[in-house]
Each structure stands twice: as C-alpha cells, then as structure tokens.
C-alpha cells in the first residue's frame, strides 16, 4: 500500500513538472527554426521550418501533443534528427545508468571500507591519509579530475583509453571519476556514524556474548551507519545523473547528459522536455527506493506506513 500511495502521489507531481518543463523550455532563448535554418536564412525559410516543426501551433496544443507523445512515442520526434525521442533516449540511457550505478557502487564500497578503516584507526597515519583524500575527493571539480585522469592514465601511463565507449575499458575512468565524490561522502559519513555508535551499550552486549570484533563492526555497527548512507546514496545518485552532463562530455561518452547538452545547444525542445521529465521520474523512483531500503534496514521507520 505504501508503494501504491507514493506512486499515486507522484502523478500530480509529475504533471506539475511536465507543465513547468514544457513552459520553461519553450521560453529558452533561440528559435529552433532559426538555428536549424542557419545564419543566412531568409524569413520565409525560417517560417517554413517553423511550420514543419509545428512551432506555429498554440502552446496549449503543443503541450497536449507533448503529453500524447508519452503514450504514442512516434508523435514525439527530435527537431534535429527527426527520430523518435524515445529511441534517442533508449539508446543513451544504458550508458548513463551504467556509469551512474557503477560509480555509486564503487563509491559505496570504497567509502564504506575507508570509513571503517578511518574509524578503527583514529589518530593514525591511515586516518590522516584517508581524511585528506576524502576532503580532496569532495572538493575536486569532476571536470578537472576527469582531465587529470586522462592525462595520467591514458596519455602518460597508457593503461586506459582516453575517450569513447566502445569497450568495457572505456568505462573505467568515467566510473572512477564519478565514484570519487560519493566515496568521499560515504567515507566521512560512515566514519562519523561508526565513531558515534562504537561506545554504545548494544555493541558491548554483543562483544560480551562472544561475538567477534569484525562481526560487531560489520553487522551491528555498520548496519546502523548504512541507514544514513542509504539516504545520502539516493541524493548522490540523482546528483550523478545530473552530473553526467560533465562526465560524458569530458570522456566522450554517448549518454543522456551529452544528448541533453546537444539538445540545449540546438534548442531541440522535444529532447530537452522529455529528458528533464525522465530525470524527474528517476528522482521520484530513487526517493521511493531509498525509503523502502531504509525501512528494510531500520524496522522503526516502518511504523508510520503500517498504521
């Protein structure tokens, strides 16, 4: 029921988003017909292209066509390529998701391990080194880090390809780069949470029962720390989808971010509108998944939903 209620609540939210997206995108400076026609086009040529693209229709009519495009994909086509927007998005989505999911997983694992190491080795060189690295990871711009990685791993060491997406090796650098910020964030979070719970009675109880220290840390202490990390992971994943614009441009990866950048550059309204709407759907789904995961990890949070 909880899932159904949340999904039902998402419908009006998405409708509002669709209106705002459609309206705002229509107000973006730059007439798509002018951009398509080129800088030497005559007024008549621009008018003919506007007509062909359906831009002379009233805003309301175009909005209804936009909504119909959600259910009849062949109605929604890119201004630039003439291909269905659904097809353009379907071709790019797996690449973006692969990098975002890969980055999140790497970030979670590295963040959790380094967070635990930091908490257990407080005040040591390990703690200092990890703290410095995490601070660097949080503060380094992705764009700069990407170029730095290309320079180091592709140009100088020759270990990995610099750009493209034709082999699994091409995904290594983008995933590592997008994983940096979540890894650093999780690391700080896990360290702080572990330090907070390390002295709690329930851990001493577990130890007194003869549970090994490793099991105390991983099962009892870390599980509680992960509850906060899961909430952060949801936010991080959304940010990674948004940040794909930068990563995909730097590494020449054909994902949704690049598609969106190109579409904005050429005022390809349908691509921009459906892409943003899809990002909104992702955020809603991710939030829902985060809540469900939190409930699974922390039974106390289930109570409101079962009343």
């Amino acid at each position, binding site marked *: 029921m909880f899932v159904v209620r949340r999904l039902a609540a998402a419908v009006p939210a998405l409708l509002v988003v669709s209106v705002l997206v459609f309206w705002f995108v229509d107000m973006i400076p730059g007439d798509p017909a002018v951009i398509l026609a080129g800088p030497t*086009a*005559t007024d008549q040529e621009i008018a003919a292209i506007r007509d062909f693209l359906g831009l002379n229709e009233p805003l309301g009519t175009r909005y209804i066509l936009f909504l119909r495009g959600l259910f009849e994909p062949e109605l929604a086509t890119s201004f630039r390529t003439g291909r269905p927007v659904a097809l353009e998005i379907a071709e790019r989505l797996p690449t973006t998701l692969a990098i975002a999911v890969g980055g999140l997983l790497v970030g979670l694992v590295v963040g959790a391990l380094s967070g635990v190491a930091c908490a257990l080795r407080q005040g040591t060189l390990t703690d200092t080194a990890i703290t410095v690295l995490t601070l660097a990871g949080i503060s380094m711009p992705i764009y700069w880090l990407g170029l730095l990685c290309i320079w180091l791993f592709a140009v100088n060491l020759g270990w990995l390809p*610099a750009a493209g997406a034709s082999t699994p090796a091409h995904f290594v650098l983008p995933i590592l780069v997008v994983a940096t910020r979540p890894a650093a964030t999780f690391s700080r979070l896990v360290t702080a949470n572990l330090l907070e719970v390390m002295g709690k009675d329930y851990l001493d109880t577990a130890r007194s029962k003869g549970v090994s220290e490793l099991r105390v840390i991983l099962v009892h202490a870390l599980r509680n720390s992960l509850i906060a990390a899961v909430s952060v992971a949801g936010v991080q994943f959304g940010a990674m989808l948004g940040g794909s614009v930068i990563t995909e441009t730097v590494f020449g990866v054909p994902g949704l971010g690049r598609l969106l950048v190109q579409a904005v550059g050429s005022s390809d309204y349908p691509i921009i509108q459906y892409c943003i709407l899809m990002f909104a759907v992702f955020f809603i789904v991710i939030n829902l998944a985060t809540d469900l995961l939190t409930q699974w990890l922390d039974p106390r949070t289930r109570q409101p939903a079962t009343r």
Partner: protein
Amino acid sequence: MSMLPNQTLRRVTLVLMCLATPLAVAAQPSGELRVAVGIDPDTLDPLTNSLPIGNAIDLLVLNGLYRLGPTNNIVPDLATEHFYSADGMVLTVKLVTGRHFSNGDPLNAEAVAASFNRLLDPATGSIFAGLYASLGKAVAVGEDTVEFHLSEPNGHALMLLANSAAMIVNVGAAQAMGAEYGRRPVGSGPYIVEDYIGGERISLVPNPSYDGPTPATLTRITFIVVPEDGSRMALLETGDVDIAERVPPEAIPAIQALDHADVRLLPSMFSINMELVLRGALTDARVRQALNISVDRDGIAKGVLGDLGTPSVGMVGPGTQDDLRRTFEPLPYDPARARALLAEAGYGPGQLSLTMTCPTGRYIKDVQVCQALQGLWQSIGINVQANIVDRGTWSGVINTLPDARLDNMGMVGRATAGMDYTLYRLFYTGVGANRTGFSNARVDDLLRLGRATTDPGQQKEIYGEVQQIIWDEQPFVFLWYQKQAMGVGDAVKGFEVRPDETMLFQNVTVER
C-alpha cells in the same frame, strides 16, 4: 610476317598486365583511419545536414552531379556536361550511366530528379528548400539527362549543385526508412555506413557494389565524437586516432612536439566580423570608419587568436569562390585618426555609447576578442557594452530585424560557398541575413545582374564592384578569417580540408 604483330601485341599485353598488377593491388582498400571530431553530425541526410562533419561523410557515401574540390572549386561528379537554354531558364545536365546505389537501385536521371525534387519541397522538412528555390523543378529526360526548369535566371546554379545539400539520395529508401535514413543513408559513393552510434562514433566501410571511378582507399574510417578539446587532443597524443580536428591554440605546441603527429594550419572561408546595425550614429560613415581603423587586427590575430586568424582584407573569406573574390589593402590601425573622425562626426570622448552582442564558444576565442575590441574602442572614447551570451540567445539576436534590434552590432562568422549565395543574402536590400539594414541601390542592381548572368567575365566585374562598395561603405567592422588547426598523424597521406571546413578523405591512405 603476320605473326610478328600478334607476338608483339601479346608481349605488350603481358608487360602491361605485369605493370597493372601492382596498381591493381595498390587500388585495394587498406588500412584503417580514426578521426576524432568535436561534434556529432546529427544527421547524414543532406536535406537537413548543415555541418562540415556531415558533409565530409556524405562526400564518401553519396554522389552529386558536381562537388566542391579542395579549394571549393566546382568539379564534375556524376555530371558529364551542362548547358543553359537560350533564355537561361532551363539548365540541362547530362550524367554518367550505369551507376547504382548501394542497395542495387539504378542511379539514373529519374533518381537524380527525384532527389532534387525532395530537396526543393518544403513539406519534406528540407532546410535548404528556400536556398535552392531558384532551381525550380527537376525533370528526368531519358536515362542520362536532367533538366532544371529554373524559377529565375541563375548563373550560379552549378555552385548550388556542387554543395553537399544537393548530393543524390535514394528517395525510395529515404521514404521507406524515414528518419533512420539520416543514420544510414543509401548512396552510390565508395563507402557505406557500417555503424552509427549517436554521440559516440560513426564507421564507414567500402561499398562492395561501388561501380564508380574513385573506389575506397581504406578498409574502415571511424569518426569518434569527442567534444572536449583536451580529451580529443589526448586521443591524438596516445595514437588512438590519426586525425583530431579543431586543435585549440593552447594545445598547438604540445601536438607539434609529438613525434608521430603535427598540426596543419589551413585556410578557412569563415569571415568573422562585427556586423553593424545601421541606425543612429552608425549611419555616419565616419563613425563606421573610426570603429574599423581603431582595431588592431594583427595584434588580435597574434595575441588573442594565437595565429589561428588572418586579418581581413575583404568581407568575403578565402575559398568562398576564389575566381570572383577581391581583396584590398589592409585597413590601418590608427587610433588617432579614429578619434579625429569621431570628433568630426560630433562625438567627443564618452559621448557615444554602443552595445555589442558576442557569442561564447561559437568562434575561436570569441569572448576574448570581444573584450579586446571593447578595450580598443574605449581607448578612442566610445563607451562599449559587451553582451556575451549563449548560442541560442546570440542566434536570436543576430537574426532579429534591424529595426527591432536593441544592440548596435553583433559578432558573426559567414561561411557560405558561392559569391551570389554570400553577398545577395547579406547585402541585398531587405532580404535574407541582411540584418544590418544595409541598402545601396547600386549594389542591389549589381547583385540582380550578377545572379542572372552566366558569363564568368561579367560576374567577375560585377562582384568585384560589389565587394569594393562594401569594403568602402564598411557596414561591418572587418575582423579576421578563421584558420583551421588540424592535428594529423604522420602516417596519414592525401588528407585535405576544404575552406568550408569539410574534411576530404577520398585520397587518404594510411602508411603505418
């Protein structure tokens, strides 16, 4: 006695066969070429493609009646001859016979006419329907003749036929495939599209059924799309690609230092100017002259553009149509004279305020040049506001009619092959891209005459005078012609780039 000629003939034939064998072997496609490009072509359908990278691929996959050669010169492709009717209203083009599209369909006059009529029909979404409107209608006459029933006399029709928009598509296939035709166009060129992954790469392989005179020289050409300059240069540095286009000025020394690649600086017909909106103070020729002679073009070309620009010596850039192009004495850099001209026009220091619109990232160092211009003009006493805007806003501003413009000038690059195409749309009263409001009765007369005449001598005289008037009237602040910087591996031979920034791969071989 009768045996001797036969024996000789046999020997000659044998020798010729021996000589021909290595040639035949050499003619086989060999080697793979990888090219890093900065932008995705969006579509390969000539109907809607307007990008040089799309042109480069179309030239390999499609044929035209004519095509533009390495200097934007018109060269025959499928056409064997052409002639105009006595009244100049019918252009007849004869074409080779026996050629086929890669799907086996015949490439005859009917196919050619169908392709042109698709281009001329606005209902197909053709972005060039207006530009090509003067071709009127294409009619097939037999197997090898196409007649263009022109809607107005046009002495520049061959230039239209040679542009990439006029390449011959298989209309049947285009109708059947819809928008997918833009990904895998069915043509009659030496290559076919093997793979098209939007935003990542396009690969071409030899067309197995190619029956023309210029077969494929390479086993594969792969275009890898990498918009970020640093990443694209990294691919060239690591040897992952053989050619990287658009080398940024700051990366030139690093690429030149490589032991396996170099930078080629090539001319471009991109003529970049500050186009003035001719109203208020800018209707005064003295003010326009003051703006022009207060620009240190050499300083900007060297100091700001890193030598990727050549100071303008005429509005029309090199390669636009060289046989009709005129160049002039460079404008002097004379700030003292500029101040005097402004004073003569009634504008003392600080009394004239102007606003300019500049794009960001559209041309090499566009923002920096605008800042330099702002400083130069402020130094002669003009208050200049530089509005630096995104591409969408910029295209909106520069396409606004002069009366509705809120600014006084905008930075625009013009790069259209053909003198009529370039000058008519920019300077004929009230048409096309004439967003300066320029109007000159003599220029209008000359442009009409120049369009109608088919006599090259007359055209040269007419367009020479038009260019002289524009250079004297100065409706633009003339700035620079862009240079193309291409990073090219030493293994690549026969690579050329046209002045319209279209790369030519027809004769490319790779010798690793």
